[in-house]
C-alpha cells in the first residue's frame, strides 16, 4: 500500500516537474531545425521563475472567475497526470477515473479557460474562446472514439488495465490501433495548440487561438497557465505512449523494472518531442476554417479503427 502511494506521488511529480523540460526540448529542436541556436532546454523554467516573481495585474472588471481559472486549469492537468501510467501501472489514484473521465477533465480545464477569456470582455479573449471551442467541439468526439478502440481491445476503460493488457500480450498486428494512433496524433496536435491548427509562438491577431485567450493574464496566473499547458503536452504524450507504445512500462509491484521503464520513457519522450518539432517545421498552419476538415479526418480514422475491430 505504502509503495503504491509512493509510486503514485513519484509519477505525478515526475510529470509536473519535468513537463517544462519536454516543452523546452521541443522548442530547442525547432530552433535547431530552423538553423537557430535556441534558448536552451531550461528556458521554460526561467520563464516560469520570472513570471512567479512578478506582481499580477488584473483588469478592473475581472471577476473571481478570472482569478480562479488558472488554478482550476493547473489542478485539472495535475489530476490527469496522476491518472496516466507513465513509468509503472501501480497507480491507486487511477481507479478514480477512467479514460472517459479523463476526456472530461480536459474539457473542464478548457471550459474554465474559455469562460475566463470571455470574463474580461475584450474582443481578443472572446474570439480566442470561440475558436478554441470550435476546435474542441470537434476534437473531443474524435478523442473519445480513439480511446474506445484500445478500451475495446482490453475490455476495460481504465487506463492502467488497458496498459497492462496491451503491454503484456504477444505481438498482434492491429490495423485498428494504427488508425487510432494516427488519429490520436492529429487530435493531440489540435488540442495542444500546435502548428497545423494553432501556432504556439504567434501573437498575430488573425491566427492565434490559445494565445488570444490568455492575453490578459500576467505574473503568477500566466505562469500557472503556461505550466498547465506544458503539463497538458506531457499528458498527451504520456497517453499516446501508454496506448500505442506501452512496451517497457513496469507492471504493478515490479520495482526492479522501474529504472528500465524510466530510461525507456525518456528515450520515447526525446524521440516524440523531436518528431513533434520536425512535424511543426515541415507543415504550415491551416486556415482556421480548414481545422474542421483536419479534425473530421481524425474522427473518420478513429471510427474506421473502431469498426475494423469487428473484423
Amino acid at each position, binding site marked *: 500500500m505504502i509503495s503504491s502511494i509512493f509510486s503514485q506521488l513519484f509519477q505525478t511529480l515526475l510529470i509536473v516537474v519535468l513537463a517544462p523540460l519536454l516543452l523546452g526540448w521541443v522548442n530547442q529542436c525547432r530552433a535547431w531545425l530552423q538553423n537557430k541556436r535556441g534558448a536552451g532546454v531550461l528556458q521554460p523554467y526561467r520563464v516560469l521563475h520570472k513570471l512567479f516573481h512578478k506582481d499580477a495585474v488584473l483588469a478592473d472588471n475581472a471577476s473571481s472567475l478570472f482569478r480562479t481559472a488558472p488554478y482550476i486549469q493547473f489542478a485539472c492537468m495535475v489530476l490527469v497526470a496522476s491518472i496516466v501510467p507513465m513509468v509503472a501501472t501501480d497507480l491507486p489514484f487511477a481507479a478514480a477515473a477512467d479514460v472517459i473521465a479523463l476526456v472530461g477533465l480536459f474539457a473542464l480545464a478548457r471550459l474554465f479557460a474559455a469562460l475566463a477569456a470571455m470574463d474580461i470582455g475584450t474582443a481578443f479573449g472572446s474570439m480566442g474562446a470561440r475558436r478554441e471551442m470550435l476546435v474542441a467541439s470537434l476534437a473531443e468526439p474524435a478523442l473519445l472514439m480513439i480511446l474506445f478502440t484500445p478500451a475495446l481491445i482490453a475490455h476495460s476503460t481504465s487506463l492502467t488495465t488497458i496498459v497492462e493488457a496491451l503491454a503484456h500480450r504477444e505481438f498482434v498486428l492491429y490495423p485498428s490501433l494504427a*488508425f487510432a494512433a494516427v488519429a490520436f496524433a492529429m487530435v493531440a496536435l489540435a488540442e495542444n495548440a500546435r502548428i497545423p491548427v494553432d501556432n504556439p509562438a504567434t501573437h498575430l491577431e488573425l491566427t492565434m487561438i490559445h494565445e488570444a485567450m490568455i492575453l490578459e493574464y500576467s505574473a503568477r496566473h500566466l505562469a500557472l497557465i503556461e505550466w498547465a499547458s506544458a503539463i497538458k503536452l506531457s499528458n498527451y504524450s504520456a497517453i499516446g505512449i501508454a496506448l500505442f507504445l506501452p512496451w517497457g512500462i513496469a507492471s504493478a509491484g515490479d520495482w526492479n523494472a522501474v529504472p528500465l521503464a524510466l530510461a525507456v520513457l525518456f528515450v520515447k519522450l526525446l524521440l516524440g518531442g523531436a518528431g513533434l518539432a520536425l512535424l511543426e517545421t515541415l507543415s504550415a498552419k491551416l486556415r482556421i476554417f480548414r481545422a474542421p*476538415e483536419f479534425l473530421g479526418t481524425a474522427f473518420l480514422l478513429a471510427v*474506421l479503427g473502431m469498426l*475494423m475491430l*469487428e*473484423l
Partner: protein
Amino acid sequence: MATFTGQLINFLAALLLLIAFAMLSQRRILSLIHLFAWQGFILALSTTVVAYSTHQPHLYYSAFLTLVLKAFLLPWILHRLIIRLNIKWDVETMINVPTTMLVGIALVIFAFNLAAPISQLADTITRSTLGIAMASVLLSFLMMITRHKAVAQVVGFLAMENGLFFAATSATYGMPMVVELGIALDVLVGTFIFGIFFFQIRETFDSLDIKNLEKLKED
C-alpha cells in the same frame, strides 16, 4: 505463421479502405490518379499474400496482372489523358467533403453488417475482409455519384472494379483465370473508350461536366 499472414491481409484491407476514403475526399485530379495507382499496388500485394498463404498458384498470375494493369498501365493512360485534355481545375464535389465522409462511414457500417453473416459461413483465411471489399465498392459508387467531372467518375468506376476484384479474392480466392483475363481486357478497352468519350464530350460542350449531358436539346 498462418495467423500472421491473416493479420497482414487484414492490415492491407484496412489500407485499401483508407485509400477509398482518401479518394472520396481528394480534390485534385492528379492526386486521385496517384491514389488509384496505390490502390492497385496494395491490391496486388494483398493478392500475393493470399496466394502465398493459401498455395493458390493462379492467384500469383492475377496479382501480377493487377500490378501491371492497375498500378502502372491504367494510371499511366489516365495521366496521359489529363495532360492531353489539359485539365488544370480541381475536382468539384456535389456535397462538401466532410458530409461525404459521414455518408461514407454510414456506408461502411452498412457493408460490414451486410457481410457479417456471409463471413461467418465462409472458412477462407480472407473471410473477414469481405466487409471491407463491399465497403470499398460502395465508397467508389458514392464517389461516382458525388462528382461532376467525367475523369473523376471514370476513376471511381475503375476503383469500383478494384473493390469487386478484392471481394472476389476474399470470398472465393479469386475468379477463374478466364474470367479474370476477360475483365482485365474489358477494363483496359473501357478506359480507351472513356478516353475517346472525354474528347468527344469536351469538343461538344467545351467542358467535361457531365451535367451538360442531361439537356436533350440545345437552347
